[in-house]
């Protein structure tokens, strides 16, 4: 009997949390597209998410591309298909590695920072203060972050695509002794617009997930330092899990239908 009541409590808690997140999401989207728009705040967030995340994304995608080249070569050598390295690197990086790696890294960097910043603003009543100063906190704090996330993640992933392919190229040419020009020609010939486009759409969705959950957890944080701490953890963990789930769903939509 106790087990059933525990199960019920967990289920009700889950429903309540989902409902709260659903309402928050609708409000956030509505406020993204209704004036007033705080262009300065949007520009700040574009720079914060796009420019300052660039080194992390570049490093991650470079090594991801490099390791895929190495793994594919050693794996494909078993049935003499080493020639497919360029194509595998291209597909792996553009479709999967760049968006997912960039998503996870940005979730750690930006999602955590957003939850911590908004969480601190919440517990020190700065968000309440905004409401008393004729400013809608959703429009001033949340919409600029979400818009910047949706716009900048594809840009980051596009750069990540190029750097990841470069990583594969460097390993392919300098370590595995492929011919440089034929590697590039292979990459170019195998490239299909859908590979890149699907990655960019995924990136945009991940950008939305990261910023939404960063804002949601920060905006609703309670208590003091501990509350802000758990908001930060929740933001990163939930965004990472959702990125992986949505990665599968989007792959299914793009390539399996």
């Amino acid at each position, binding site marked *: 009997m106790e087990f059933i009541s525990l199960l019920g409590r967990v289920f009700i808690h889950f429903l309540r949390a989902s409902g709260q997140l659903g309402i928050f999401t609708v409000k956030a989207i509505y406020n993204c597209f209704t004036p007033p728009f705080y262009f300065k705040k949007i520009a700040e967030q574009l720079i914060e998410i796009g420019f300052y995340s660039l080194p992390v994304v570049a490093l991650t995608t470079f090594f991801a591309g490099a390791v895929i080249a190495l793994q594919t070569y050693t794996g494909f050598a078993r049935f003499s298909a080493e020639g497919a390295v360029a194509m595998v690197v291209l597909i792996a990086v553009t479709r999967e590695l760049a968006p997912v790696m960039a998503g996870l890294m940005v979730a750690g960097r930006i999602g955590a920072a957003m939850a911590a910043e908004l969480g601190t603003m919440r517990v020190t009543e700065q968000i*309440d203060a905004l*409401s008393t*100063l004729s400013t809608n906190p959703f429009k001033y704090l949340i919409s600029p972050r979400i818009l910047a996330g949706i716009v900048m993640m594809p840009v980051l992933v596009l750069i990540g695509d190029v750097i990841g392919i470069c990583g594969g190229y460097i390993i392919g040419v300098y370590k595995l002794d492929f011919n440089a020009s034929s590697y590039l020609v292979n990459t170019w010939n195998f490239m299909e617009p859908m590979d890149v486009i699907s990655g960019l759409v995924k990136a945009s969705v991940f950008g939305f997930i990261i910023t939404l959950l960063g804002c949601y957890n920060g905006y609703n944080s309670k208590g003091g330092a501990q509350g802000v701490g758990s908001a930060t953890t929740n933001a990163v963990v939930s965004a990472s899990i959702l990125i992986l789930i949505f990665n599968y769903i989007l792959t299914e939509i793009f390539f399996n239908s």
Partner: protein
Amino acid sequence: MTERKNPAQKEFNKTLVQKTMALFSSKQPHPIKIKLSNVHKSFGKKVVLDGLDLDIRKGESLVIIGGSGTGKSVTLKSILGLLTPEEGSITVDGVEVVNASTKVHEQVNAQIGMLFQGAALFDSMTVWENVAFGLIQGHKMKKKEAKKIALEKMAQVGLTADVGDLYPADLSGGMKKRVGLARAIATHPEIIFFDEPTTGLDPIMSDVINDLIVDSVKKLGATAVTITHDMTSARKIADRIAMLYKGKIIWIGTVKEIEKTKNPYVVQFINGSAQGPIQMAVKADD
């Protein structure tokens, strides 16, 4: 024989009647600015406001006293629309704010200024940007003009212009409160809320803040609502004092009346005695 009145006499009599009428009407109670009727608010099983009724008159300075967890902050936050009561009605200038749209809240809050307990200054902005925030964002004022007004308001609360370029993290508790006060009065609000304005300050700084509050409210002619448990502050600021206990107003009266009251709850509170009908809750959610 009846004396014929000359026109000058007639005019004098007319003025006299007008003046008497004006005097008479000034004796009438002020119109209600904020009205709370039967307001209920709970957090889970904890009932915080339990049928709160309160009328706040236009132009008065009302101080709400009460222990921690009695619902003082919740009352202010409910008026601002930051919390939504489950039941009851709150009107500001006759406009209902319970379950009102965001637009209505924005319109109502535009005439309210608030000094928060911890000052709630935006730590990413300088002091003058904090003070000018409501003018720039709410009133769409040009930055240069807003800065001029911000510096004037800062001077009004005893802060020099060079403080304007500092960040809130560089300020002491008392200075933060002053900046918070300057920000609250910058937009010339009709209503000002003060959330525990003297908590955490030394007695001298508390008195300075109290003086500034009295002065600012008088200058603006605003309706002020202060929540505090500092009786020295309450006596200095208040026209009327209301005591909140277990989510209800249990006593309301002037500063003179509170000294004479025999209400055991009020007597215990103003004397700061552990013995009496009020049993302090160990867990404070206020």
